């Protein structure tokens, strides 16, 4: 299933075995491929390159015509003040993102278990409805969500975001866990059932211990998407500074009117991107797996 999909896409193809001598044409194509790959590399890396080099040029990054060039001297002048503004929102984001990811991972794993191993009449239909939930745009539920929050008494607190991301995370988490659990052989569960273990007991003693990689995938996925979310954040918090999270705080810094302070803006953007970039760098394999699970078919 999707884990095969991910391993297919994430493992480099073994090229050693077809290392036959390249003829002239083959060599030309090899050079061509590297050339094309390098061009694409430059394009892909350009925006982050701009961000990094301009974040060490001080607050304004004065010289526009040299903006593509690396700085002649390191100037971290923009880092202190930006960090001061971003520190509190980033910690707040971290806390709420962790909460919402953990909750939705747990719910997702229970759902996924039921859908994968305890099929009941109509479960395919319900599962398909779940999947549709993945495609519902944020916009379609935003207005009632604010009213619901007020009704539930969590309006104006960070829990509006926890709640929103949990709800939105359930479909994708369920899907990832379902695919993951489908790879667990049914015999294992049958055997436990013969021994008299119930549904919950099997889940606790057999499924959960096997779920660690699944949890890593789901947590990373939820972490990244909740951290990077802007629409819910700006909408549900109403731009209140008490509730500003990483993306809204960043938008406040870089928003219209402040566009001349490029050095400052780039620094702020970089700081906000660091957590997700770190996750990507160190756990990229799991990140990719989460991405591909979103594609349903594997």
């Amino acid at each position, binding site marked *: 299933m999707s884990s095969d999909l991910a391993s*297919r*896409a994430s493992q480099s193809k073994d090229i050693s075995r077809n290392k036959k001598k390249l003829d002239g044409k083959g060599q030309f194509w090899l050079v061509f491929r590297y050339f*094309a790959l390098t061009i694409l590399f430059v394009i892909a890396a350009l925006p*982050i390159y701009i961000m990094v080099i301009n974040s060490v040029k001080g607050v304004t990054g004065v010289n526009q*015509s040299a*903006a593509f060039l690396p700085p002649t001297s390191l100037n971290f002048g923009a880092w202190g003040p930006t960090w001061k503004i971003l520190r509190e929102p980033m910690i707040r984001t971290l806390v709420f993102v962790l909460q919402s990811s953990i909750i939705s991972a747990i719910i997702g794993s229970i759902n996924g278990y039921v859908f994968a191993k305890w099929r009941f009449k109509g479960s395919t239909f319900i599962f398909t409805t779940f999947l549709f939930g993945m*495609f519902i*745009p944020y916009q379609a539920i935003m207005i009632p969500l604010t009213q619901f929050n007020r009704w539930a008494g969590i309006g104006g607190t960070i829990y509006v975001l926890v709640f929103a991301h949990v709800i939105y995370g359930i479909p994708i988490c369920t899907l990832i866990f379902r695919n993951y659990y489908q790879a667990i052989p049914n015999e294992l569960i049958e055997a436990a059932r013969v021994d008299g273990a119930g549904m919950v007991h099997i889940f606790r003693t057999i499924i959960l211990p096997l779920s660690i990689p699944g949890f890593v995938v789901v947590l990373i996925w939820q972490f990244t998407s909740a951290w990077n979310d802007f629409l819910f954040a700006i909408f549900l918090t109403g731009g209140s500074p008490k509730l500003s999270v990483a993306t809204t705080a960043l938008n406040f810094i870089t928003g219209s009117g402040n566009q001349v302070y490029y050095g400052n803006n780039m620094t702020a953007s970089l700081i906000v991107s660091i957590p997700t970039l770190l996750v990507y760098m160190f756990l990229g394999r799991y990140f990719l797996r989460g*991405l591909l699970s979103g594609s349903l078919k594997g």
Partner: protein
Amino acid sequence: MIGWTLKFSFSNRTSAWKKDNSFAGFARYTELLQDPEFTHAFSNLLKFTIVFMVGTMISGLIMALLLEKGIKGEGFFRSTYLYPMAISFIAMGTSWRWLMDSAQGPKATGLNLIFEKMHLTFLENAWYTSIKSSMFAMALPAIWQMSGYVMALFLAGFRGIPDDLREAARVDGASEYKIYRHILFPQLSPTFLTILIILGHISMKVFDLIYGIASKGYVTKVLAIYMWQVIFDFQNYAKGAAIAVVILVLIAVVVIPYLIYVSKTEEAK
């Protein structure tokens, strides 16, 4: 929740202080149709969707084709192509806003500066600030962000095809081009479909990206931006809900048949 939004969209709640929730039928929708801002946002969205989908497909496929047979350093290239997916658009918007700065000629910055230096002045343009090129310019960062994802999907697709198939065709004397055209691509049609659906639904609800770069500017307005404006700036909840419903319907039309198809094939297994 969706029902709630629907109810709103059929109501008279056109301002925050006039708490009138009476039923208004399709009044909000007919209003939308006559609203030039709405049709403008709608056509912008269509343009964006077409450019974005075609562009991402092509560049993702090129990346996958280049990597597909395996090459030294594959992992390195693959990770660089994919990293944009991990970054918020509010953050990357800063870079892109600078890259797509509209200043031209001697004052050029960003991409225009590169074109200026390379004497490709005809390529310099106003990017997202001109109504002519706005949606093309906006599609650029979107393509940049999603190409790596499409590449990963294609790669997974290619690698799911057994090598024997290729070998067999090669033995039969098929050229590389013919192998791709007649053997590999037909096998990938489910992958193509999946990618179309994913890109399509992302495109319909696009918001962060455009907001991050151009805020609420008129030339780059799409449905999601307009909805936001209607709700926040004009406090017209009913109309905002109606726009949300339009977005939802657009997505549903594409996604529901796909999901039914997927669940049918799952059941057949």
